[in-house]
C-alpha cells in the first residue's frame, strides 16, 4: 500500500490559538477522541479552546491516542502531559487510553462539544463519524436527552466513504464538491452497503455514467440513509452536524434539502467535537474535585 496513492487520505491538522498562553491558565484540561478512523486531541485553558490536533487512527488505540497528543503538544512550546490537570478519553478507543483520567462516551461528548462549537441554541446534533452515525437531542446546557445510533452496518459512515473513494480513485476530500458538480440529480444507488455499492458503481460507470454522477448517486443514498435517523429523532432547531462527513458538502447539502433545515456553519474543525466535549468534561470535573478539596 505504501507507494500506492491513498485516495481515502484527508489532511491531518493542528491548531493553536496565538492570543492565548497556557502558562496563565488556572486549569488546563484536555480531551482525546480515539475514533475508528480518526483521533483528535483538544486542549482547553480555563474552558476555552487553546489547541487541537486531528490525525488518523491506527489499529491500536493507545498508539492513536499517543499520536494525537504528540501532534498537538509539539505545536505548543513548553506544554507537556504533566501540565495537563485532567484528561478524558472518548470514542471507540476510550477505554484503551492509558494516560486518561476517565472515559466518557462520544455521545455525551459530542453533545457537549456541539453545544460549545455551535452555541446553546443547538437542540439536534447529527454526528457522522467514521464507524457510525448518531443523532442526539440536547438541552441548552449540552446534556444528551436522547440519542439514536445507526444499526450494525457501515453504510453511510466515514469508513464507507473512504472505501468508496478508494474504489473510484477519487480523493475522499473531493467527493463532496464533485458530487454537486452535475447537471441533474441522479437516482440514489440502491444500496449504500460499500460491498454492493462497489459492483453497482462499477456497473454505472460501465454504462457510461460520469464519476460525478456516480458520486452524486452515492452521496444521495448516504443522505437518505442518514435521513432515517433524523426522521426518527424528529429534528428540532437549531441543527448542527459534527464529525468527519460534516466536511462533505455533497452529503450535508443533500441532508439539508431532505429535512428542509439548514445546518449551522461550523467555526472549528467538525471532527474535534468529541475531543472538545471530553476536554470540557475534564475541565468541569477537575473544578468540582478541587472545590470539594478546598471545602474539606
Amino acid at each position, binding site marked *: 500500500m505504501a507507494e500506492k496513492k491513498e485516495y481515502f487520505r484527508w489532511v491531518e491538522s493542528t491548531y493553536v490559538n496565538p492570543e492565548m498562553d497556557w502558562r496563565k491558565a488556572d486549569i488546563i484540561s484536555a480531551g482525546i477522541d480515539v475514533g475508528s478512523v480518526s483521533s483528535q486531541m483538544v486542549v482547553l485553558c480555563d474552558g476555552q479552546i487553546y489547541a487541537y490536533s486531528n490525525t488518523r487512527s491506527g489499529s491500536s488505540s493507545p498508539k492513536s491516542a499517543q499520536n494525537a497528543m504528540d501532534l498537538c503538544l509539539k505545536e505548543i512550546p513548553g506544554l507537556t502531559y504533566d501540565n495537563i490537570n485532567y484528561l478524558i478519553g472518548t470514542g471507540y478507543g476510550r477505554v484503551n487510553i492509558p494516560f486518561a483520567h476517565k472515559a466518557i462516551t462520544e455521545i455525551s461528548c459530542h453533545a457537549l462539544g456541539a453545544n460549545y462549537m455551535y452555541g446553546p441554541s443547538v437542540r439536534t446534533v447529527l454526528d457522522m463519524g467514521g464507524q457510525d452515525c448518531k443523532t442526539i437531542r440536547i438541552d441548552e446546557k449540552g446534556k444528551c436527552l436522547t440519542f439514536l445510533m445507526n444499526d450494525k452496518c457501515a453504510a453511510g459512515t466515514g469508513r464507507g466513504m473512504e472505501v468508496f473513494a478508494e474504489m473510484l480513485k477519487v480523493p475522499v476530500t473531493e467527493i463532496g464538491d464533485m458530487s454537486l458538480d452535475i447537471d441533474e440529480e441522479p437516482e440514489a444507488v440502491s444500496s449504500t452497503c460499500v460491498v454492493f455499492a462497489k459492483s453497482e458503481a462499477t456497473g454505472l460507470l460501465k454504462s457510461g455514467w460520469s464519476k460525478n454522477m456516480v458520486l452524486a448517486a452515492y452521496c444521495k443514498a448516504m443522505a437518505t440513509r442518514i435521513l*432515517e435517523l433524523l426522521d426518527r429523532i424528529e429534528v428540532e432547531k437549531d441543527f448542527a452536524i459534527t464529525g468527519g462527513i460534516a466536511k462533505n458538502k455533497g452529503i450535508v447539502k443533500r441532508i439539508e434539502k431532505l429535512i428542509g433545515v439548514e445546518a449551522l456553519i461550523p467555526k472549528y474543525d467538525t471532527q474535534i467535537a468529541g475531543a472538545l466535549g471530553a476536554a470540557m468534561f475534564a475541565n468541569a470535573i477537575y473544578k468540582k474535585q478541587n472545590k470539594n478539596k478546598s471545602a474539606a
Partner: protein
Amino acid sequence: MKLRKIENIDTTMFEQGIPIMAQLRDHHSTTKAETMFYDLTIKLCNEVMSAVKGGRPFVTNVMSFPTEIYWAMDIAGIEYDFIAGMFSLYMGNKDEIFTAAKSIGIRPEICSAQRAPIGWFAKGWFPKPNAIVNTSLCQCDNCAQNANIMGALYDVPVFCITRPYLFWTQKGLDFMIEEMKAAIEFLEKTTGQKMDYDKLTEATRLTKKQMEISVEIHNLIKTARPNPVKSGTGFLIHFIRMMFAGRQEGVDYCQAFLDEMKERVASGKGYTPEEKYRLVSCYTFPPGMHGLLDWMETQGATLVAEPMYHYYNEAEVAKIDPLKPIEALARIFYTEPYHGFYGPYEVFSDMIINDSIQSGVDGAVNFFNTNCRMCGAVSRLIKDQLREKAGISTLTVDVDVMENSAAVEEELKKKLEQFFLVLDNAKNKRKVA
C-alpha cells in the same frame, strides 16, 4: 420518538391510492376475475371514503376478521394491512411509512405486511375508524398486537379476537363462538349500530356459498390438465372472500373465477402456454411481483396448487349452518384454509403434501414472507416432508411481500432458473427409471 396521539389525520394519500388500483387493473389483469378484483377493491375503498365523509360508521380490521358482521350491522369496513401494504407497494412510499413505524420503535424485523399499517397510522394517512378489530389469526403475534399501537395513535377502541391454537376441538369452537359474541357486542358499543341477525344469517349463507364454489374450484384445479388457473391469483380470490364475506359480490367473484377456469378446461387449454413445470406454492407468492410471474409463464412454469388459498375441506364446509349464524361465523373462521397455515404444523403440512400429490406437481416453491415467524421457521421442515412424502424437491426463498424491486426479481429469476434445471434433471431420472 414517542407514541403519541396523531392530531392531524389527512386521507389525501389514501384517496390517491384508489386510482392506482385502476391503473393496476389496466396494466396487469389478463382475466375477468382479476379485473373484478381491482374493481371490487376500488369499490371497497370508495365505500370507506364516503362513510368517513358521510358520517356512516367505519371499522378497520386485520386479515381474517369475519366481515359478515360489518354487512349485517351496516358498517363500512376494510382490511388495514392489505390496503396499507398494497398502496405503499405501488405508491413507492415504503421507506416513509417504515421510518414512521420505526420512529415509534417498530423495527424492520417485524413482518412488513403488519408494519405497513402502523406506518400509515403513524403518518395520519389512514381514514379514522370508529374502532379497530384484530385477531390473533392463529397465532400471528403481529396481527394480534399491531392494532393496539394503531388504536393508541388514533385514540380509538380496539378489540382482539383470540383464536385457540388447537381449533378443531369442541372446546376451540365454543371459545370462538364466545369471542364472536364479544366482538359483536364491542362493535355495537363503539359504532352505535345494532346487529341484524337475519342479515347475519343471510351473510353466512352467502359465505358458505363462496366456500362451496371454492371447493369446486379446488377440485377442478386438482383434476384439470393443463392447469386452468393463472399463477398467483389465489391471493386475489382469498382477499375477495375475506373482504366480501357475506356479500353477493363475493359470490359473483368466486363464480366468475370458476367459470373462466371451466372455459379453459372446455377448450382444452391451460392458462400457461406449453406447461413444463407444475408447481405447488407452499405459502403466498409475493403479490407485487407481476414481472416475475410473467417471466415464469414464458418458462412454462405454472403455480398449480396454492393450498393456502384453495385447500377447502368439503366436510367442514358442509357443517356450516347459517341458521346458527354465530356458530357459523366460528366454523367459517376455522374452515378458511389460510388460517390453517398459521396453526399447528401438522394441519397445513398435510394440506401442502396432499395438494401436491393430488395436483400432480413436479416441484414446490416456498416463497415465505421474510420475517414471518410462522412460515419461515418451518420452511426446512416442509422441504424435508415434501421430499419424503411427495417425492418432490422444494425451492425455499424468503422474499418480502412488500418487495417488488427489479433487483430482487432478477435474484429470484436466477434461483428459479437453477431450480428448473433441478426439475429437468429429476424428470430425466424418472424417464430412465
